[in-house]
């Protein structure tokens, strides 16, 4: 009974409380309106407005106004918008709240994402740089990494003009003798390349430069780590935001900038001059023996270069007879008239290339979910014929709260990527030193037309022009039907769980799958002096799959004035297993594209390979501590085990320590108001690198190879018997290369953050460098010699970033960022009794020597001190093989009175000592303007292309450069640009590497100039557009350089062999029109 009354009473009481609270709520739930404006008084659309302590929120409309209902006891509104500082306003009794948001321009609040955790620049104790997402978008390129050039201090970046090419990207120098590419992390997953990323999907880019930042990646950190995160949406109740970013433009091949060639008549005249010079040098009578230029002293051009087997035809030909012959033998009969005006072969192989990129982004969220979808298409033509890049990508990122403590999410991207007509090894990186079709354009004489009179491609079947091949044919025919497809999916799935406050456990499983297919058609052509006699066809495909499994625990807490954050993790991964298969054959019955396949070709050959990747198993941890936001300490360590090394030395431990002191936090600094922020940083640690060693290095292996170990012991004419040979000598003791990095940094902000300065002085010593010590030839050279941990290298430098923000009057605002990197690179040790190793040979020229005490890939050769200007000078100079009047005169470096190979010396280094970039952004009302200048100073280029064009005797008869007119004559003397025009080839002419090829590669390039206009929101909002901006930009507007080649950006496929320009693909001017819409 008692219980019942009690229960009734309770019900009544509850009802009463409920009613009361409802009344109270009604009383307090009121509507507040307002407007959010920027410092310029314009309304800001899309600002999120949240009633603090609740999940009630809204966002401002196109004119910046908002309306929100307040709830009982809650009257603080929180405003946040991208690019603006967040702000909170207590409403009190107001019904109309107007808020002015200041722009968030301080770099101190920049998010730094290390992949496993994130912090902001204010708290960072390490050397870390970030790149604004917008800077990655302005210049369209096939690989977003190219846009880091000049945007990050401490990063050296050399690239070329091929769409979708790889580039040399080196964070803080060249740490090892190879495998110096940084580690790329995309949304926490390590990837081999970032060429799949659409720049519009990228939210943050962080470059971890020193051990204090990068060592969390331990064994793979030595080359720096570049961490990308993609857009994610935000957990706020708001409408979906749709963005469209489009770009359309064209790239100009810069025909005017191509090296000048001799005109047809000039080439004929200079051929006869060479005959006279030869006769004088040899003491023989002059013979005018060229099959085209006549037998008189004055060279003339014939009426036909080639007419069905006859060369240098003067007078009419029997056209009908030739046509009849051509009908009988369509591949073998040519009728070539000289192109008296001269063919500009560079112009013929290039084109105005269009580019377009369209990106759609859908982002949004609710209180407990967020998402981003990105669709992007980019089609970019190369300036070379039949060189095309295409990429279509779809990205979906999302995260959902499951209750209050658990979140699940995923990031995934699917990509279609196709690059046709790319040349150069290592995905285009090796184009600079390859004998590309661009070099072929210089090697082809101008007198030969692109097509002959019968409509065939014309070429060197016309006698007397040596062996170049018509590059227009090669590109149109041999690349025109080629294709390739790369399909890939990469992403991860993760779960986060907060078992207690401040502790987050995270588990992520990620994968990266890729699949490729290619087809390659090449066609018979008999019009070259060295004909390509067969039609050929090849196709192939392959796949790879890599995975990463990461588990981390992160704890963050504040005890009074002490802040601590702790991170621990376990990671295992495989870099990718896969297979490749490819086949080729020649001469199918018909070359009809609908007919040809590998079953229908002659001599079919098939090859395949498989690979297992490298497994890593790693443990890592990080502790960060700070007291009063004044003193910061960070310690981190990673222990890596890798299958790349044998059981003897499989594990490596990489610790790093860093500290920072916010001096401006001290009381004595409060009296210096000009200094808004001052922080000193010190970091020391070890990082590992294992890229530069084959995973099989630990094993001694045998194998077979059709080309080098098969022998027809039974005497058959077709095929051979399988043989085996030792393919590798193993070193089970090889271990990590270790880089010890020291970094001293200062971050200063002056005058209320108007100026910001970040200086980092650093040194990186790499020891235990993996070096394949050359074995004596008597051991046999086909077995790969083992890499041993023996060499060492030192990189040191200074990174400098200066940022300024300012205003001119009330309307003009500007931001300037100047990034500078000074770099010194030196090999300090190789191996006992090994002081150097060489590089590649180019037509008998070996320009590279990697030597102790020099930078990587240094140029080595004779020092040319002029020309022999008289017979007397030849007699009075140190004896030199092949010395004669007008030839190169070399310095007797060792002073022994005779020029020998011992007189070769170091004649330059391709490593730039300074690289830098200046970005200027100006805003005036609705107009914005930005420009970007890039410079690279102190690097030298070995201009090997001059070997082909600047000597008469190199492939005599082929196309020659205008430098012939500046070749040595008694009058020009040492002012000549090339030695005497003659046929001889020896070390005094074209037969040796020397300083004549070496040119200064320094340059300054205006890489971008953009003008944009944002339409008034009053107009655009009427058609449902939140903001609309149109822009026009010009890229690579001018380049100031003394380099005589097409482009001073000369890379190479290997770090021990770059800076050699044989046929580089230039970066040229382009113009784009852009449209950015937000709905």
């Amino acid at each position: 009974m008692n219980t019942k009354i009690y229960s009734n009473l309770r019900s009544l009481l509850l009802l009463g409380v409920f009613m009361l609270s409802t009344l109270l709520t009604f009383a307090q739930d009121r509507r507040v309106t307002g407007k959010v404006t920027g410092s310029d008084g314009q309304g800001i659309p899309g600002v999120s407005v949240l009633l603090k302590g609740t999940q009630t929120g809204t966002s401002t409309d196109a004119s910046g106004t908002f309306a929100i209902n307040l709830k009982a006891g809650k009257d603080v509104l929180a405003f946040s918008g991208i690019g603006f500082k967040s702000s909170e306003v207590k409403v009190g009794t107001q019904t109309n709240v107007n808020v002015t948001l200041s722009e968030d321009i301080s770099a101190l609040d920049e998010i730094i994402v290390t992949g496993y955790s994130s912090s902001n620049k204010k708290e960072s104790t390490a050397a870390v740089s970030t790149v604004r997402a917008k800077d990655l978008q302005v210049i369209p390129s096939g690989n977003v990494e190219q846009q880091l050039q000049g945007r990050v201090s401490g990063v050296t970046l050399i690239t070329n003009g091929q769409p979708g090419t790889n580039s040399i990207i080196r964070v803080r120098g060249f740490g090892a003798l190879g495998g110096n590419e940084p580690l790329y992390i995309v949304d926490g997953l390590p990837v081999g390349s970032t060429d799949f990323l659409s720049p519009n999907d990228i939210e943050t880019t962080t470059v971890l430069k020193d051990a204090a930042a990068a060592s969390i990646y331990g064994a793979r950190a030595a080359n720096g780590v570049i961490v990308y995160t993609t857009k994610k949406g935000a957990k706020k109740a708001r409408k979906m935001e749709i963005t469209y970013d489009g770009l359309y433009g064209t790239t100009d091949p810069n025909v005017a900038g191509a090296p000048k060639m001799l005109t047809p008549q000039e080439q004929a005249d200079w051929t006869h001059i060479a005959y006279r010079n030869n006769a004088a040098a040899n003491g023989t009578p002059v013979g005018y023996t060229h099959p085209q230029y006549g037998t008189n002293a004055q060279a003339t051009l014939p009426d036909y270069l080639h007419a069905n087997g006859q060369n240098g035809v003067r007078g009419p030909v029997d056209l009908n007879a030739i046509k009849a012959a051509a009908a009988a033998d369509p591949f073998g009969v040519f009728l070539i008239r000289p192109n008296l005006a001269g063919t500009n072969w560079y112009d013929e192989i290039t084109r105005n290339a269009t580019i377009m990129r369209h990106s759609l982004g859908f982002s949004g969220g609710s209180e407990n979910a967020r998402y981003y979808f990105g669709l992007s298409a980019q089609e970019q033509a190369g300036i070379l014929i039949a060189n095309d890049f295409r990429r279509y990508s779809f990205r979906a990122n999302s995260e959902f709260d499951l209750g209050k403590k658990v979140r699940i999410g995923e990031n995934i991207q699917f990509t279609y990527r196709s690059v046709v007509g790319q040349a150069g090894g290592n995905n285009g990186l090796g184009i600079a030193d390859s004998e590309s079709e661009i070099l072929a354009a210089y090697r082809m004489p101008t007198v030969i037309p692109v097509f002959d009179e019968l409509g065939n491609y014309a070429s060197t079947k016309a006698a007397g022009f040596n062996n170049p091949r018509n590059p227009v044919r090669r590109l149109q025919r041999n690349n025109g039907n080629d294709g390739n497809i790369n399909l890939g999916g990469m992403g991860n799935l993760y779960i986060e769980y907060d078992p207690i406050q401040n502790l987050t456990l995270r588990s992520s499983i990620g994968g990266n799958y890729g699949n490729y297919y290619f087809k390659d058609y090449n066609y018979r052509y008999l019009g070259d002096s060295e004909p390509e006699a067969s039609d050929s066809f090849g196709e192939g495909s392959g796949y790879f799959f890599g995975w990463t499994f990461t588990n981390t625990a992160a704890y963050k807490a504040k005890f009074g004035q002490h802040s601590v954050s702790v991170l621990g993790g376990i990671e295992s991964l495989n870099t990718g297993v896969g297979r490749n298969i490819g086949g080729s054959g020649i001469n199918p019955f018909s070359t009809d594209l609908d007919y040809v396949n590998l079953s229908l070709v002659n001599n079919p050959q098939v090859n395949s390979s498989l690979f297992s990747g490298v497994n890593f198993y790693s443990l890592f941890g990080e502790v960060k501590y700070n007291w009063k936001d004044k003193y910061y300490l960070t310690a981190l360590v990673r222990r890596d085990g890798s299958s790349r090394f044998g059981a003897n030395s499989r594990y490596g431990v990489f610790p790093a320590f860093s500290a920072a002191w916010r001096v401006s936090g001290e009381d004595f600094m409060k009296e210096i108001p000009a200094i808004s922020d001052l922080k000193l940083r010190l970091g020391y640690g070890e990082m590992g690198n294992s890229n530069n060693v084959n995973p099989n290095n630990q094993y001694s292996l045998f194998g077979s190879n059709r080309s080098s170990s098969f022998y027809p012991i039974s005497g058959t004419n077709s095929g051979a018997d399988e043989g085996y040979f030792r393919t590798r000598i193993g070193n089970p003791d090889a271990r990590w290369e270790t880089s010890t990095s020291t970094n001293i940094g200062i971050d200063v902000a002056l005058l209320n953050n108007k100026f910001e300065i970040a200086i980092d002085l650093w040194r990186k010593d790499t020891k235990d460098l993996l070096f394949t010590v050359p074995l004596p030839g008597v051991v046999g050279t086909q077995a790969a010699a083992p890499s041993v941990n023996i060499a060492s290298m030192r990189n040191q430098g200074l990174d400098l970033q200066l940022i300024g923000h300012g205003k001119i009057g009330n309307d003009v605002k500007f931001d300037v960022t100047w990034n500078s990197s000074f770099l010194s690179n030196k090999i300090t040790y190789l191996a006992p009794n090994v002081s150097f190793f060489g590089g590649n040979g180019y037509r008998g020229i070996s320009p590279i020597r990697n030597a102790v005490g020099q930078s990587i890939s240094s140029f080595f050769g004779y020092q040319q001190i002029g020309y022999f200007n008289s017979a007397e000078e030849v007699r009075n100079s140190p004896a030199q093989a092949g010395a004669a009047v007008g030839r190169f005169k070399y310095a007797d470096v060792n002073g022994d009175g005779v020029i020998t190979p011992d007189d070769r010396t170091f004649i330059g280094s391709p490593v730039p000592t300074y690289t830098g970039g200046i970005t200027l952004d100006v805003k005036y009302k609705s107009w914005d303007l930005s420009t970007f200048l890039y410079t690279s100073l102190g690097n030298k280029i070995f201009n090997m292309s001059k070997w082909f064009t600047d000597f008469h005797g190199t492939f005599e008869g082929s196309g020659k450069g205008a430098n012939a007119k500046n070749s040595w004559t008694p009058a020009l003397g040492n002012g000549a640009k090339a030695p005497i025009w003659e046929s001889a080839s020896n070390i005094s002419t074209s037969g040796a590497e020397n300083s004549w090829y070496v040119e200064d590669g320094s340059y300054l390039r205006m890489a971008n100039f953009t003008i944009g206009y944002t339409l008034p929101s009053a107009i655009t909002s009427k058609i449902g557009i939140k903001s609309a901006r149109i822009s026009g930009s010009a890229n690579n507007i001018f380049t100031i350089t003394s380099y005589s080649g097409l482009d001073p950006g000369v890379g190479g496929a290997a770090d021990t062999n770059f800076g050699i320009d044989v046929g580089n693909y230039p970066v040229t001017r382009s113009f784009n029109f852009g449209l950015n819409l937000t709905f």
Partner: protein
Amino acid sequence: MKIHFNFRKKLIASFAVATLALSCKDSFLEVLPTGSLGEAQLASKAGVEGSLLGAYSMILGKNYSRLAGPNNWVLGSILGGDANKGTDAGDYTAINPIQRYEVDPTNGDINSVWNAKYEGISRCNSTIRLANASKELSATDKTKNHWRSSFYQRRLLL
């Protein structure tokens, strides 16, 4: 206290799961090479025979300089005055000083010719080692001697 206990339990549980899933066996870090043979795989008669064929194949000097081939066109025919290089002085310039008896030690072609010969000798020696180690072959010394003489002959040929 209870919260603390819970936290510990959860933490331990989470790490236990992670550790179990990842428990690093050494075998995870053993990734065997692909597309190649171990020495043991060549211990059979066929393996040693194949290794001998590999040694013979070096008579062809493949994968070395064009001067290393069996016809010896430069060091034999050109130096002997039977042949000329052809084309012009600017093509394959490394041959010019050889033809003039002026070759200097930086000429990579000479090195390559010797490298090809020593590779052949190295393959012979490697075959002898394989034969000595082979249990299958040691059954009859006669066979072994036959192999041996064959290798030594091959070494002389180079």
